[in-house]
């Protein structure tokens, strides 16, 4: 068991291993519906045992991509390989994939047990083996006691687990999940997220999740592919995506962000200096970017990486004065809306560590907004 675990850990970064063979390979796939381009020239490699999340707003093409993997849609151009096999002519019922549908799609006229055993029956698995495997999987999702119920006799969370069991029982090479937690309430979502991660860890099946919920993607996924207008704009671990977004779109889509327009003054190997009228002070970043001096850039800084103080740091950069225009108390943290002297409004969130801060900052206070030199990210687009 311990050895298994270690192996799994060594596999966790397969995408950085140049020798690793991708398990799912999507090659220049485009899907058009009439004139509408749903998926635009997407290429993506996913490795064995990953839990990959496709993240994007509605209509970004993520569901179409998932449906092409399942075989419900055919790519207009491009190829999809699963475990080295070209999927072009393979209908859904012969693919090594299973899908958990957003609506769960539980067969209303069948019991939980009949639903879960449906896939195995199609493969003509012997009856006693079906019985055992269905029993095991229902145990795993804690639904054994409900085996003889019909879907309408189950709550939303229970249905979700039956749907998961049904798609897992055939041990597919690739499990596709379409907004798996979409229909659940917040408390249940959190519990289920960890359940899915657990199951994925235990069975070692490759998961592909489609979601519009960035929090869900961040918690679940080993890697995230952010989609916009049919294209994948960035692929990376949740941390990479959050800390080093590569475009304004990604920075804005994942979490909340303050953006400052500016241009590059100095670009050295160990730092960049960016002049920004909006920020009201030069921005100093402690790592280089490769861009021509004078190039226009956008500097993104997360609200939690900004600090507020009543005194200036006096360094001349990464510190800008402003006035507090609003305070939103949210329990674990407070969000301040500060209007900089340049006129730009920024959001700053600070955690409420103490119950009543002594030097509380309030409406209309004059403040300085400061940040650390490694906090900002300079974006070229």
């Amino acid at each position, binding site marked *: 068991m311990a050895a298994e675990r270690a192996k799994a850990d060594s596999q966790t970064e397969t995408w950085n291993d140049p020798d690793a063979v991708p398990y799912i390979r999507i090659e220049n796939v485009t899907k058009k519906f009439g004139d509408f381009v749903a998926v635009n020239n997407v290429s993506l490699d996913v490795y064995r045992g990953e839990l990959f999340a496709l993240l994007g707003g509605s209509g970004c093409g993520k569901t179409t991509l998932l449906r092409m993997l399942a*075989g419900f849609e055919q790519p207009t151009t491009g190829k999809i390989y699963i475990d080295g096999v070209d999927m072009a002519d393979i209908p859904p*019922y012969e693919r090594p994939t299973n899908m958990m549908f957003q609506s769960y799609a539980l067969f209303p006229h069948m019991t939980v047990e009949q639903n879960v055993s449906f896939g195995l029956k*199609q493969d003509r698995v012997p009856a006693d083996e079906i019985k055992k495997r269905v029993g095991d999987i229902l145990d795993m999702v804690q639904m054994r006691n409900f085996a003889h119920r019909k879907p309408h*006799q189950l709550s939303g969370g229970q249905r979700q687990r039956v749907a998961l069991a049904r798609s897992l029982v055939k041990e597919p090479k690739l499990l596709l999940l379409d907004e798996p937690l979409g229909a659940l309430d917040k408390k249940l979502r959190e519990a289920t997220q960890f359940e899915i991660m657990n199951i994925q860890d235990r069975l070692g099946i490759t998961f592909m999740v489609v979601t519009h919920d960035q929090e869900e993607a961040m918690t679940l996924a080993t890697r995230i592919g952010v989609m916009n207008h049919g294209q994948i704009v960035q692929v990376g671990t949740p941390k990479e995506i959050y800390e080093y977004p590569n475009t304004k779109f990604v920075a804005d889509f994942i979490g909340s962000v303050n953006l400052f327009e500016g241009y590059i003054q100095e670009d050295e190997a160990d730092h960049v200096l960016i002049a920004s009228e909006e920020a009201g002070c030069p921005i100093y970043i402690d790592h280089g970017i490769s861009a021509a001096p004078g190039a226009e850039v956008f500097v993104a800084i997360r609200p939690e990486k900004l600090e507020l103080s009543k005194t200036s740091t006096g360094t001349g950069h990464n510190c800008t004065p402003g006035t507090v225009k609003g305070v939103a108390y949210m329990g674990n943290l407070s969000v301040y809306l500060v209007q900089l002297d340049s006129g730009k409004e920024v959001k700053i969130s600070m955690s409420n560590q103490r119950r009543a801060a002594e030097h509380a900052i309030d409406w209309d206070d004059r403040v300085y907004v400061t940040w650390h030199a490694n906090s900002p990210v300079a974006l070229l687009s």
Partner: protein
Amino acid sequence: MSNRLSWFIILMLVVGFIFLYGPMVSVVIYSFNDNKLATLWGGFSTRWYPALLANDQMLRAAKHSLIIGVVSATFATTFGTIAGYVLARYRKFRGRTLFSGMVTAPLVMPEVITGLSLLLLFVAMKDLFGWPNRGLMTVILAHITFTLSYVTIVMQSRFTTLDISLEEAALDLGARPLKVFMVITLPIVAPAIISGWLLSFTISLDDLVITSYTNGPGSTTLPQVIFSAVRLGVNPSINALATIIIAVVAFGVVTSHILMTRAERRRQRDIQMALQSNK
């Protein structure tokens, strides 16, 4: 919303329902009239009912009607289910507009036209191939054609509201398309298929005009017999027959209504319990 209906609406409902049911009630009452002149009350009697059973012509006609109804409803339901599926699921194919036109047009097409055109087709076919002779066969063909539309409409709306991901899930789990249709789609839409069958059966049973055009001499149907009797005026044995028909239909409709309401109530209770049970 406070659910108070205005006096006007309530009055209209009462008057409307009296209007709908009054004539039927009067037929039922007069079927127990002893007087041969069916409109004058001559005391209570059930003598018209046994007389009905002794009427050979009427029994034979009823048998013809039932055969036509069962056969044509079965075929119409089969074709109509397929047609409904096609219209609901295949959003684009060549000739779709013509197809949906041919499906809905018979619903409103005056029967005299449908009947005449089918008759002329059968006559031309007879001329060319020596088949079919006018009789049960031609009536069945005609009835399939015009009841098919009703089934198609019922099935089309059922299929459009059916979650397509149920079928996709079955495909995804390894069932081939035909199997998906048989094991998933058909059982789920079965209630709609049954009501489609009943609908086409009743319409077929009731049809007079199209039958009159396409029928031959040896296979007179019940509506044809009734029609030729009532053309001459009110007739006590027709009253009795009408009462039987009304009773059968009322029994069927009310029973199915009760069963459906009960099933729905049970279902709602299950859903409520599932929601309350736990997470």
